[in-house]
């Protein structure tokens, strides 16, 4: 209990509250701008968090992403363009409601059930993370090796519709992580005599480059804009109590699905929303109404995408394995702030852990009034011209990449990886697995080499401990499954 009090003391300070309010506005704005994602909001925030204390830094990320995932619904309903990929699943449904004159209902449902989903995910995080950390304390390098392999595998197989290109993107990220002296041998590799690379590739410029620069470049070549639909927005919260009662199973199911998918490494809010929308349609009593402006799917998948945000923090805090690309960035920030993720975090810094939990609760509660403001001012918000916004974002990216080491080399890295990511996406290679590889690379290598040395080069010890054996078996099964399916299909022909 004294930890909770100490955590509250860390959190309820004027500067922290100010940070939360400011990043709420920032998150709502970024989420509502089509083309700017919640991940990009995080990437743009990181240079600022660099100069903050640990708790406000994490609070900034948590608040901004929660707000951004909700406000992605706003242009979805009014422009038929999802503000973030997480709203794409139900954008047609929301727009159909707008055309029926129910824009306020669509947005209100998005808002209220986003908050409920977020709180559900937070409850799971608060309950599951310490319990899992208890178990994880007994883990050795073997378990961590398999766990990170499993995480990377999920990222490639589940999080992308193109596993082969995802695999290549992942190996690219792992290779970038190899640069420099940060390997178990402490040997200088892949730096090719460039002194700025001796300590490895600086994480934040790469991140800004890969998540923000492609959007800036794409805005230059994408033509056309959209007109804001003529929507009357009267009463955002009317009928919400009725909906909550009528669709209670859906709300619960969406929140649970979202939390679970968020916790799976690599799969985040967008996939949570797609799957929940499909589940909602499948089990609905009024399936024929889907697609014609029916609120049920919006409620379930709106809850799911916000629930996934908190779910993603479970493996991130307990094992240091990110549940989605946002937590991949957040893990980088946790390390920078000396809050190294892992089970010992719960022993050594319980105050900070509880403060993070409280931030989640606070952000999801604040979402309701702040989101109401955003909905009410939606039409003005969507009128910000992209031609002005994107160059300003570029400038912020440049300064942010520079600020980490006060060196123009950061800007070089940002530009290089930005152009690489743009070319990758043009050719169908997903960027997410590359970032995951970059974050997890050192962890995988360290535990792999450590385990190999302990096992004296034999493979059997990798499977001898019960949990390691189980994780290893599952990982190998997933790896071998595609080949087995292929052989089976051939044999049947």
């Amino acid at each position: 209990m004294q930890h909770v009090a100490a955590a509250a003391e860390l959190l309820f300070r004027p500067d922290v509250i100010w940070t939360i309010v400011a990043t709420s506005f920032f998150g709502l704005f970024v989420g509502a701008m089509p083309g700017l994602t919640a991940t990009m909001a995080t990437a743009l925030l990181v240079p600022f968090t660099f100069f903050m204390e640990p708790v406000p830094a994490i609070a900034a990320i948590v608040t901004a992403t929660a707000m951004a995932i909700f406000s992605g619904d706003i242009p979805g309903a009014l422009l038929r363009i999802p503000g973030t990929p997480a709203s794409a699943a139900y954008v047609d449904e929301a727009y159909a409601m707008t055309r029926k004159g129910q824009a306020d209902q669509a947005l209100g449902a998005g808002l209220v059930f986003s908050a409920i989903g977020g709180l559900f995910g937070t409850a799971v995080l608060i309950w599951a993370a310490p319990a899992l950390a208890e178990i994880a304390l007994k883990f050795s390098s073997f378990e961590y090796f398999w766990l990170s392999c499993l995480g990377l595998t999920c990222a490639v197989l589940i999080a992308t519709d193109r596993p082969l290109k995802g695999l290549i993107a992942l190996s690219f990220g792992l290779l970038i992580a190899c640069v420099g002296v940060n390997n178990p041998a402490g040997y200088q590799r892949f730096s090719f005599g460039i002194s700025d690379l001796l300590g490895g590739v600086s994480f934040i410029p790469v991140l800004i480059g890969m998540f923000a620069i492609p959007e800036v470049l794409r805005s230059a070549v994408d033509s056309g804009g959209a007109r804001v639909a003529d929507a009357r927005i009267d009463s955002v919260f009317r009928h919400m109590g009725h909906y909550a009662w009528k669709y209670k199973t859906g709300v619960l199911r969406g929140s649970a699905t979202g939390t679970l998918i968020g916790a799976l490494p690599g799969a985040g809010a967008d996939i949570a929303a797609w799957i929940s929308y499909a589940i909602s349609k499948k089990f609905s009593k009024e399936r024929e109404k889907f697609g014609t402006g029916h609120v049920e799917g919006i409620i379930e998948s709106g809850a799911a995408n916000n629930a996934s945000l908190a779910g993603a923090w479970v493996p991130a805090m307990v094992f240091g394995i990110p549940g989605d690309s946002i937590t991949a960035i957040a893990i980088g920030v946790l390390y920078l702030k000396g809050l190294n993720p892992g089970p010992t975090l719960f022993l050594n810094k319980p105050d900070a852990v509880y403060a993070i939990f409280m931030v989640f609760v606070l952000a999801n509660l604040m979402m309701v009034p702040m989101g109401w403001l955003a909905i009410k001012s939606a039409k003005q918000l969507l009128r910000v011209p992209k031609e002005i916004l994107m160059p300003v974002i570029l400038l912020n990216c440049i300064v942010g990449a520079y600020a980490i080491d006060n060196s123009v080399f950061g800007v070089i890295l940002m530009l290089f990886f930005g152009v690489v990511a743009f070319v990758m996406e043009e050719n169908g290679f997903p960027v997410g697995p590359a970032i995951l590889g970059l974050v997890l690379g050192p962890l995988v290598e360290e535990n792999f080499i450590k385990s190999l040395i302990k096992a004296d080069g034999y493979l059997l010890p990798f499977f001898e401990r019960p949990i390691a054996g189980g994780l290893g078996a599952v990982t190998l099964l997933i790896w071998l499954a595609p080949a087995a399916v292929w052989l089976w299909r051939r044999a049947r022909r």
Partner: protein
Amino acid sequence: MKFNDAISGLFLAVVAVAVIAYSRNLPAMPGQFVGPGLFPTLIGAGMLIGALLLIARGLSAGRPWAEIEAWARDPRRLAHLLLIVALTLAYILFSEFLGFVAIAAAMLAALFAIGGVRARVGLPVALVATLAVDYAFQRMLRVPLPRGLTDFLPF
């Protein structure tokens, strides 16, 4: 530019082979049978397998070697894209000499212009946005942005 998967695969295969060749030459840790080259070798191998599968898929897909999207044929949009890259390069090369305020304001003004923002709006917004970013990073976060020729400015 959309390349056929076979072309992307070929490029990646070359990268993977280079990585493996480089990693094989790294020494082992003293007294150990493993070294800093093992992990990158394995990743290189994984990448090589992926690249070969990609080549196979690209060859059987029967698509052209490279396709140029509609935007790349539109000189205005292509110029816009190249300008963003060129201006960022210019920032990398000249920011130390010119100073942040000068180069950032010029960059924004140029990008607003090519984006079709009228000068009456674009020029003042470029100046205000530059000063706002300068204030946020220089004053609030204490990042020493390059001052260069603008060293005489009071802020």
